């Protein structure tokens, strides 16, 4: 059994330090920016009590370094401030939209993975043929389309023919009819399809290209020639040797991209008016709800760090060469 603890430990430590850096960056951005955004002085609809509470909680009358320490401590204990708009704790307010975004993103990613990986492998296998050329070009094309534009195109040209809803997360009237969990679930899924499809299409191009080049790289390695010399058939070579080797970088890349896709979800949710964390962030901007913005930025950065950490772990599990 490989002594894996120090590797895992090191990556975990790195993740924690990065989170600390992210928190610090957050502090710098919001606290030290021109025009104080955090003291609620700029909040139109806030009461005096609220402003006083914020000042006390975050020590806004103390020196900057002290404020920093308070901020770190508060953040570490889960207190990300209070929304200017609702005066509720930011973390609680962010949780609802996050719960909406995650299934949508997962659905889209699953779609992208299954399609992209398959097409990438086939493409590498049939290198140089029409299939290969077509998938490379379509991958490149999809990769180049602006996400929000793709979403709009789906609304224009796919929603109608497929009879799919193009906004919100659920039919507001359905709840009144109280039809049971199945129709409600179907309704939810229907609302999720187009946004998820957009994510899927955006990612699929990238995944196809990555899988293809990773596969091609593996197929050029010496051990593939050895396998051929041993008399293995093409299919056996791919299944027993090439796949496992090329999947390693792909898996880690998928997790790395997952971290960033939450940012891309902002555009999609804006177009589809889907109440996820992306839309929440957008609305916080227009409503000048800075604590929410700050909290959202932190959550999204932390999720990227988390995904990176998971990618590191997976790489450790899958690649026997990674040791101390």
């Amino acid at each position: 059994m490989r002594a894996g603890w120090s590797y895992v430990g090191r990556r975990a430590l790195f993740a924690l330090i990065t989170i600390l850096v992210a928190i610090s960056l957050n502090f710098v951005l919001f606290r030290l920016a021109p025009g104080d955004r955090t003291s609620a002085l700029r909040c139109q609809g806030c009461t005096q009590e609220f402003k006083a509470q914020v000042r006390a909680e975050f020590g806004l009358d103390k020196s900057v370094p002290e404020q920093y320490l308070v901020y770190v401590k508060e953040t570490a204990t889960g207190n990300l401030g209070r929304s200017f708009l609702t005066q509720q704790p930011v973390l609680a307010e962010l949780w609802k939209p996050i719960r909406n975004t995650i299934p949508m993103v997962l659905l889209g990613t699953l779609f992208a993975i299954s399609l992209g990986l398959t097409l990438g492998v086939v493409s590498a296998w049939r290198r140089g043929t029409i299939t290969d050329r077509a998938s490379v070009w379509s991958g490149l094309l999809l990769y180049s389309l602006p996400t929000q534009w793709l979403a709009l195109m789906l609304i224009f040209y796919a929603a109608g023919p497929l009879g799919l809803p193009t906004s919100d997360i659920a039919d507001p009237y359905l709840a009144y009819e109280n039809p049971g969990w199945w129709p409600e679930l179907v309704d939810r899924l229907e609302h999720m399809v187009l946004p998820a499809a957009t994510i899927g299409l955006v990612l699929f191009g990238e995944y196809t290209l990555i899988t293809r080049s990773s596969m091609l790289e593996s197929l050029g390695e010496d051990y593939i020639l050895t396998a051929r010399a041993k008399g293995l058939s093409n299919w056996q070579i791919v299944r027993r040797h090439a796949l496992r080797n090329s999947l390693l970088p792909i898996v880690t890349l998928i997790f790395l991209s997952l971290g960033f896709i939450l940012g891309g979800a902002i555009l999609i949710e804006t177009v589809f008016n889907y109440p996820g964390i992306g839309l929440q962030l957008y609305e916080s901007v227009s409503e000048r709800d800075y604590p929410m913005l700050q909290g959202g930025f932190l959550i999204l950065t932390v999720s990227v760090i988390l995904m990176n950490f998971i990618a590191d772990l997976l790489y450790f599990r899958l690649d026997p060469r990674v040791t101390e």
Partner: protein
Amino acid sequence: MSPQELAEAVVPATADTRRRIPLWGFLKGHPQAAIGAAILVVFALVAILGPWLAPYGPREQVGPIFGTPSNPHPLGLDDAGIDILSLLIYGARITLIVGFAGALVAVVVGGTIGIVSGYFGGRIDNLLMRVTDYFLVIPDLVLLIVVASIWGRSLRNIIIIIGLVYWTFMARLIRSQVKVVRERAYVKRAQALGASHVRIITRHVLPQVLPLILAQTVLMVALAIFLETAISFLGLGDPNAPSWGRMIENAFDRSAISYGAWWAIVPPGLAVAIVIMAFNMLGTAAEDALNPRLKVSHLLRRHFRMRPLPDREDPR
């Protein structure tokens, strides 16, 4: 050193520093790159000659809101009755300027850090790469949103942020290439002869790394345009810069969907997509040409062919 290594060390001293990739040959050999380059030339011309090419002004109302495409407005009118074709032509400028400027910042910052890190190695390298790691995790769009909403929606801010987010990719890539170049014999020779670091970097390292930097810059411009389009869509773009991204935003905000006014959305998006795709085509082809990592695949669908023995010329 074996005799062979010694020979290799001496001979390519001249060969390497003089190695240039002929541009024309490259374009001919890579149709992908040629198409990409052609498209970009067209767009560049449109951007430069904008005001002379556009039939109408960018703020000139010439018809009703969301006027349908017809002569003399082949692409219809936007939410303020302005000719979309003209907007598209004027928008080319802004989009390309932001793209290049943002990429330039990323390249300059990233390139410098990459070269320093790769050349000096050791502690400086470790420190810089640590910093890079921390920057890598920041989601690009979210950071841009935050900065734009706090520090204002100017073009300058957008360009700076694009640079700050993307320098990391540049830095890593350049660093690994610099490390390779640094080990080459002629660099070691120059060091042994006592040349200063600056001299070595500018005369030996930089020319070798420059093609890679250029190829990456091209890809970076694509990213920058992508980002600018995204941030404009979210209403945080520069209100005085009518880029293609803003056109899409305007249309969306003013309910182009309800009007069914696809002409307000499809052209600008398509324009962005084509330009980005052109940059990507050019950039990936250049990268492939510079990094011939792709080995021959040992997996074959066809096999070698058998043929009859050739006639012998002389009797054995």
